[in-house]
């Protein structure tokens, strides 16, 4: 196990009325790519910041075990704009333990980043790629990527995803904690997924299990069957598509169609929001 988060809570406000993270628990195993999904304000970045020690948890525990530490690509990807790429790499080498400068130069070349250019003159995408190159050149036990492909073109995005997918292979025992709003990306690289909503984990499982656990059913405009989990995904004039648990749907004899991660994600979030509104 690389990381164990137990009943992590992070509240804000004078009366602690804002519950950014509200009692979440999860584990990341060696070699695993774990994705934390959730809508804006679900608590993903706060969770990551608590893991990194940038925020102090209100309660709960975070156990990290590893000899190399944590590498991190934040959501903002802010670097020193007055530095040249060369200086930025030299600075990263000075500040980072177990940093492979040669690898960083190779990655910079692979990502077509002009190394004599000042960072202020690079595009947002190039700055993001440089941040990723700096992070991938660090030997770590846990690599945390918070929305790493934001603002990247599809080709660069694929290159980055390939690199992230290769982390556990290239760095024995290393694991990845990944967040993204682009669910097709998550589907491409993740082993395990947790869906976070209103600071709570609404669903968590291996990606294949999660997709297997849910299915879509088509109902013509009839009364809804009484199921523990049923959320309308989309509707046309004659029929409605619902997401529900496969086991329940099969028990009641509905024709089950596979649900994509995007369908599952939307259904889980909608269900969670509905439940919290009821509560």
């Amino acid at each position, binding site marked *: 196990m690389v990381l164990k988060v137990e009943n992590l809570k992070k509240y804000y406000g004078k009366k602690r009325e804002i519950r950014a993270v509200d009692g979440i628990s999860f584990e990341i195993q060696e070699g695993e790519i774990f994705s934390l999904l959730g809508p804006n304000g679900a608590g993903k970045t706060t969770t990551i910041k608590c893991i*990194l020690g*940038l*925020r*102090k948890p209100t309660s709960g525990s975070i156990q990290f075990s590893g000899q190399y530490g*944590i590498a991190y690509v934040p959501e903002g990807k802010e*670097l020193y704009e007055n530095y040249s790429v060369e200086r930025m790499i030299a*600075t990263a080498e000075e*500040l980072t333990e177990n940093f492979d400068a040669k690898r960083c130069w190779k990655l910079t070349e692979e990502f077509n980043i002009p190394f004599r250019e000042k960072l202020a003159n690079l595009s947002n995408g190039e700055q993001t790629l440089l941040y990723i190159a700096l992070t991938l050149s660090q030997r770590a036990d846990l690599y945390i990527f918070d929305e790493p492909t934001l603002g990247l073109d599809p080709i660069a995005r694929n290159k980055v995803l390939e690199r992230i997918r290769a982390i556990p292979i290239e760095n024995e025992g290393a694991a990845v904690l990944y967040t993204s709003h682009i669910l097709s990306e998550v589907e491409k690289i993740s082993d395990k997924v947790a869906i976070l909503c209103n600071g709570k984990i609404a669903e968590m499982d291996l990606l294949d299990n999660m997709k297997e656990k849910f299915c879509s059913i088509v109902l013509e405009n009839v009364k809804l069957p009484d199921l523990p989990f049923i959320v309308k995904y989309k509707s046309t004039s004659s029929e409605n598509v619902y997401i529900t648990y496969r086991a329940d749907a099969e028990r009641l004899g509905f024709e089950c169609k596979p649900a994509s991660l995007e369908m599952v994600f939307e259904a889980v979030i909608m269900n969670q929001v509905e439940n919290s509104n009821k509560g």
Partner: protein
Amino acid sequence: MRKELYDLKVRLLGTLIVCIALFFIVAPFQKLSVSLLEGYEKIPGTSKIMEKLIPQGFVENLKEWNFYINSQWFGKNFGQLVPIIGIILGFPLFASETEKGTIQFILARRRRLWVFTTKSIAGLIALLVITAISTLLPSFFSIVIGKQYNHQVIPHFFIHTFFGSMLWYSTSVFFSVIADDQVKPLIASLGLLAATTVLGLLKPLKFLNTFSYALGTDVFRTGKANFTLTVWMATSSVVILLSAMKLFENREF
């Protein structure tokens, strides 16, 4: 440390250039200053005003090189800059990283204690370089132009200028740690400097005026640094820096 010194490079060189330029506006013009003041005294009607503004015998004293350079450099031009130099070096140290979001880049790689210590020491090195060079200027200049100068006062003036600026450096570092942008620590430090100086004009609050220490008044009078005040300045600076460190260790980003 290399990164921190690189980040400080522009401010260090800029401040140093200002100090050196200021010195060369003051030092070579002893005769001009004296003749101007003497000229004013001869203008009918101004002699009474001059008597009120300038102590008796001051113009005569200015004709003596040691008196001129020490009073005009340490006691006036450079002396007045001493606290401001500390503020200029301290205010962006942490606030700039917080404002730009780059603090996450460092804190994800290094322990907070390391980050605080490295940044603070780099700032202190820059402060040491500026105050040392600026304090040595009268000595070097006197040698170059062949004037008789009492070089023994230089280490004493250095103690006053260094610790006088260190107090305000620590104060601006403190504000820099708690601020989210660079404007707040600058305004807070300058505001506090102005407030303590104005309040220090009141007799019971005289101790608040840090300028009398930074200008080296005691060195000018006695030829030696004020040991008690230096200990106070150094202790206060260290206490403020330690408080800033504690705040930095507990701050959320």
